[in-house]
């Protein structure tokens, strides 16, 4: 079931409440969105407006009370944990603000973790692909270094390489530059957008940074659980 035949990920009328009884909050109110190949989307808005909640639902880490979600042409909301996890592993890549690398593992091993779970490549193939991806983010020389010995910018680049490990359709990024200085922020954003456009993937990133948002193809402004405004930017590549 695809709402848009070309969208890599599309959601319609998502509804989500959080909390219970008196503290119950309606965090998503009929949110709809479509991510086309090669497109970069930013979600902006004040804290608590539902940006991250939307991201986690799109990433199959959370479930809405109502709505539809299609990833790669297949409905994805009624899946059991096993199938949802497999879909996430195969088709989605996450990048978080705080990098979230496994600190006991090297950069290369971190990149290989999603590949191990997918189980399609041999050990040698996984190592080659991990090195190739780290090369792509400029970290091939540090592939064998424990992730805790990398700088913040380097860790975020490793996280990007890891998000690309299984060649996903869609990258979901929760403030990927929020914890970086301006130089690294620029570098990471550039890397993400270039990869997405070159490989016809889609990127949805949550950001508080207007400068970053301005450079995305689409900017969705959220307020009180709704997308109140969507702007298409004209980007000069």
């Amino acid at each position: 079931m695809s709402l848009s035949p070309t969208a890599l990920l599309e959601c319609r009328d998502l509804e989500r409440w959080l909390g219970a009884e008196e503290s119950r909050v309606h965090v998503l109110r009929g949110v709809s969105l479509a991510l086309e190949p090669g497109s970069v989307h930013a979600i902006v808005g004040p804290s608590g407006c539902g940006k991250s909640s939307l991201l986690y639902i799109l990433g199959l880490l959370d479930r809405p009370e109502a709505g539809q979600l299609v990833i790669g042409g297949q409905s994805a909301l009624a899946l059991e944990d096993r199938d949802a996890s497999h879909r996430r592993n195969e088709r989605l890549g996450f990048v978080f603000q705080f990098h979230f690398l496994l600190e006991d593992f090297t950069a290369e091993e971190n990149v290989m973790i999603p590949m191990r779970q997918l189980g399609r490549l041999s050990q040698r193939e996984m190592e080659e692909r991990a090195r190739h991806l780290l090369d792509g983010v400029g970290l091939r020389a540090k592939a064998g270094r424990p992730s805790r010995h990398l700088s913040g910018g380097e860790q975020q680049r490793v996280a990007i390489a890891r998000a690309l490990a299984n060649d996903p359709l869609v990258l979901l990024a929760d403030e990927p530059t929020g914890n970086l200085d301006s130089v690294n922020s620029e570098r990471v954003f550039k890397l993400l957008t270039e990869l997405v456009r070159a490989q016809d993937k889609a990127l949805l990133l949550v950001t508080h940074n207007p400068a970053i948002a301005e450079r995305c193809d689409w900017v969705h402004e959220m307020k009180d659980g709704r997308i109140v405004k969507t702007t298409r930017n004209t980007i000069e590549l």
Partner: protein
Amino acid sequence: MKPVLYIALRFTAARKRALILSLSGVVLGVGFFISTQAQTAGFEQFFTDTVLGTSGAIVVTDRFQERYAPVVKADADSMVAVSGQQPRKYYTGIDNPNMVMRAMRDYSGVLAVAPLLEGSVTIRTDFKDEILKLEGIDLDSQLRATSLGHQLIDGSIDGFRQKPFGLLLGSLIADKLQVHIGDIVYLAGTGGPLGTPGAGAAPSATPTGGAPAIPTSAPGSDLHPFTVEGIFQTGINAIDETRGYVHRQSAQMVMQKPYLASMLIVRLRDPERAPALAMQFEKHLHHRARSWQERERGNLEMLHAIRLSAAITVSLIILLAGFGIFNILTMTVLNKVREIAILRSMGYRRADIQAIFVYQGLIIATIGSVVGCALGAALTFAISQVPVRIRGPVHADTFLVTWSWHHYAAAALIAFASVLIASYFPARRAASLPPVDTLRGSGQ
């Protein structure tokens, strides 16, 4: 390698201090369990071997006859006759021992049968008198059915074979009476009064190394002179301080029994089958048959209880180790909340997260069991070399140990069960952690 096992190995190896703490508990528990079981089972096995080697797996004694009291009940139209079973009537001794032995040898698993004439006699030396449990044996049958040949610590079986009035004495009673090989002692049936050895009898105590002539009975008395041809030691004091062996015909003469066999000793290929076979003997041969398990029930239960008690005590160490692992894994789960969330975001299922933590427990159990088994074997060997003088119910000069793979399997099983339970609950908790809560908490 499965991805969850790979991650579990890395998580485990990364926390070296926790790993050493967890491992040390399991290693010590497994090692102590094995070594204590080896000791307690060693004494139990020694006792069992001695019982089997001395009295056989089954002892067949008196013939019996089932008795029934006919009851006739009549009513107006009919008369019904029923049989009411009454206690068996026993006849002392084996009835037609050769025939009974032949029948027994036909049973599969029966390796040897030996006839014995058993009774109590008084043994007299210059030094003192003692009551002796005398067993008249057929030497060759006895050697086949028991470990008598291996139990001889002084003298020779051949010497005994050649002397119709030769005597084999238990080591403790020989000690008590201060007799040695070649000495002459006097035996008398306990029913009659003890006379004085006649002037024609051999000296009452001939120095060891002498070659005394076959003594003859003292005229006008019930005393029969016997030459000590061997001293045996079973290791069970109750036997070594009371028992003596003579040839069966000599025993019959001393004890003045009207029959030549009061019991039969049966050696089996598989002693564990003794109770079942004893029941068959009773049913088909109409002689009382008692398995070694029945005869030694009290001692066996006591030894078993000691062994069980030791097992329970030492298992507590493993359980404590399991509790330690529970705490360590619970702390690990709390410390790995972010890692759990990120693994979930990368497509690892709840079941995978649970498996990662259960595997960590299993890794500890595996390494702990292997090292613990090695420690247990080393401790068992060291303990078996410790010289001790045990002169209680059994007689030993070192700690008795048994080498059995069952002890190692049981220790590993307890370790795995304990660690599996200890790791299951933290693992389940890890799997149930909602990743969104962690990601949301860190991301906004």
